[in-house]
């Protein structure tokens, strides 16, 4: 009854006022343009970062050229800058961390994807592993100073006393150095490796596993001969991505690696990385030192972004979801 007596819109005019329709059309085009701007703005931001760092590094690039990369002196008092000890420290600490974290991460991935645990317990374990990534770097650093260094120092000294003839163990351990830094770094990149490895392990087709099991394969026959080969490229991608993360990691290393710009083959020697030198020096740097630090930043950016791009390409091909455990 009510609807029948309600006035009908006059034919020929839309029931929304023309003005309102116009306004919503205007807003529609404004909104779509702003999404367009925001997304290309993100791309522009990345380019801007690269250009800004490169531009600020120009004075140092002119002064030192490519010799910067192989120079072994880093001395702000005499304005002598060479990046080799820092590049070495960055690569070695990240490499050591990767060496520790990859087997652990893959083991976790296997343990959490092959059905060992009841579902609830499994998702709780996943949550715990993800929490490892949530703890701030600076707290890992603090923990490293008071927990890890007191463990690695006597260990290092014992190894040095008994196996000192091996170059890796050739120095006394005075506390901060590659070993505690790499150990803490390994913990920090572990969740990345575990999460990405398990998502590529999950891509193994179930019928292949079941078929193998039906033919009498044990659980580990299936894992070693079917799941892991299928997931291999994903795991490699995960390790590469983790390497990039490890090289850019700053605070925990700044607190644990000892801030020493000398190259030593020993894993107990104090060293320095690009990122931790940046953290320690930028606040007070002036003149050419700022340019030299920018040059270092540029090198770090080229290294990490290059490595990340490689990892993205590898992971993209595997088609595994790259964000969750």
């Amino acid at each position: 009854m009510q609807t029948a007596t309600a006035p009908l819109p006059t034919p020929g005019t839309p029931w929304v006022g023309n003005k309102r329709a116009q306004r919503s059309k205007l807003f529609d085009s404004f909104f779509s343009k702003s999404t367009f701007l925001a997304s290309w703005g993100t791309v522009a931001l990345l380019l801007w970062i690269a250009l800004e760092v490169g531009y600020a590094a120009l004075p140092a690039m002119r002064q030192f050229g490519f010799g910067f990369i192989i120079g072994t002196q880093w001395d702000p008092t005499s304005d002598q800058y060479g990046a080799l000890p820092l590049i070495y420290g960055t690569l070695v600490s990240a490499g050591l961390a990767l060496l520790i974290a990859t087997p652990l991460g893959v083991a976790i991935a296997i343990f959490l994807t092959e059905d060992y645990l009841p579902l609830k317990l499994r998702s709780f374990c996943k949550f715990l592993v993800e929490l490892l990534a949530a703890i701030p770097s600076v707290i890992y650093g603090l923990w490293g100073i008071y927990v890890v260094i007191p463990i690695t120092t006597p260990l290092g000294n014992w190894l040095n006393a008994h196996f000192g003839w091996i170059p890796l163990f050739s120095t006394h351990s005075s506390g901060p150095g590659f070993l505690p830094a790499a150990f803490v770094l390994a913990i920090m990149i572990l969740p990345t490796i575990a999460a990405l490895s398990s998502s590529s392990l999950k891509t193994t087709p179930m019928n292949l596993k079941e078929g193998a099991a039906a033919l009498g394969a044990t659980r580990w026959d299936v894992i070693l001969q079917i799941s892991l080969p299928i997931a291999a490229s994903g795991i490699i991608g995960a390790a590469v991505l983790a390497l990039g993360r490890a090289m850019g990691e700053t605070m925990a290393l700044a607190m644990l690696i000892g801030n020493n710009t000398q190259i030593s083959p020993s894993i107990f020697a104090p060293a320095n990385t690009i990122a931790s030198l940046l953290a320690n020096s930028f606040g007070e740097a002036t003149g050419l030192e700022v340019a030299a630090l920018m040059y270092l930043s540029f090198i770090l950016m080229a290294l990490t972004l290059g490595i990340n791009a490689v990892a993205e390409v590898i992971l993209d091909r595997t088609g595994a979801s790259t964000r969750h455990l």
Partner: protein
Amino acid sequence: MNAATKIHPTAAPRAMDLSRKLRWRSIFSRGMDGLVALMTLAALVPLVSVIYMVISKGAGNFRWSMLWQLPPAAGMDGGGFGNALVGTLLLVSIGALVSVPIGVLTAIFLTEYSLGSKSARIIRFCAKILSGLPSILAGVFIFGVLVATTHSFSVLAGGLALGILMLPIIILATEEALLRVPRFLREASLALGANRTQTVLHITLPAAASTIITGVMLAVARAAGETAPIIFTALFTSYWIGSLREPTASMAVLIYNFSSVPYDNLVNMAWTASFVLILIVLVTNIVSHVVANRSK
């Protein structure tokens, strides 16, 4: 017949051989089962140790007054980290204020306006690369653009550096959330005469809201703990902040600065600040985890 007699003598030992192999294989399999379980446990030891240390060394010294007092001078007793707490909240808020709108708009562009196109692929690739940018380089960039040109460290600079780090996390999380909204919802809305913007604002975004909020919270949690990008953009002070153009203290930089000084009071304060910071970060993480699980 001939063939059978030939096979028969070798068949028995081979079967025995096989069963021995099978036993060895199952022992090996069991052993590896134990090994991966052990390695998973081993990986959780540091987590337990960090949390234990932070609670035992940090929570013990906690006093409520720490939340509103200023850091003490070196060698003095008492004090707190009120200015650092305010600083961290300000820094994260500025970061979120900048990155959330841009990030959400970018994700909307990726899923609603250019799904599957070449430009979407380029933008997504850049977002992923940006998410791998070492956090310290965000600080270096802001230092070059803002700090070196204005000759002043400021909370604004620190907040913007955090915003750069939060941006890709928000883009990727929002994109995933929007992709999960069923297509028929959008089609129904469009069929009823709504335009794209109306569809996005009234249908798609509300449907994806809880997942987007999860992503934002994770980005906030990460930014709250970040130290490297603010250490030489927001710097540190022992005083209250007066304006957005002044340097500020923050929890993360306070922990770093006090971690290796020879004064027990300051070291203890670093632990207590860690306790508070971890509490903030973990609570944010757990809440977002619960929100995410509920939305599934």
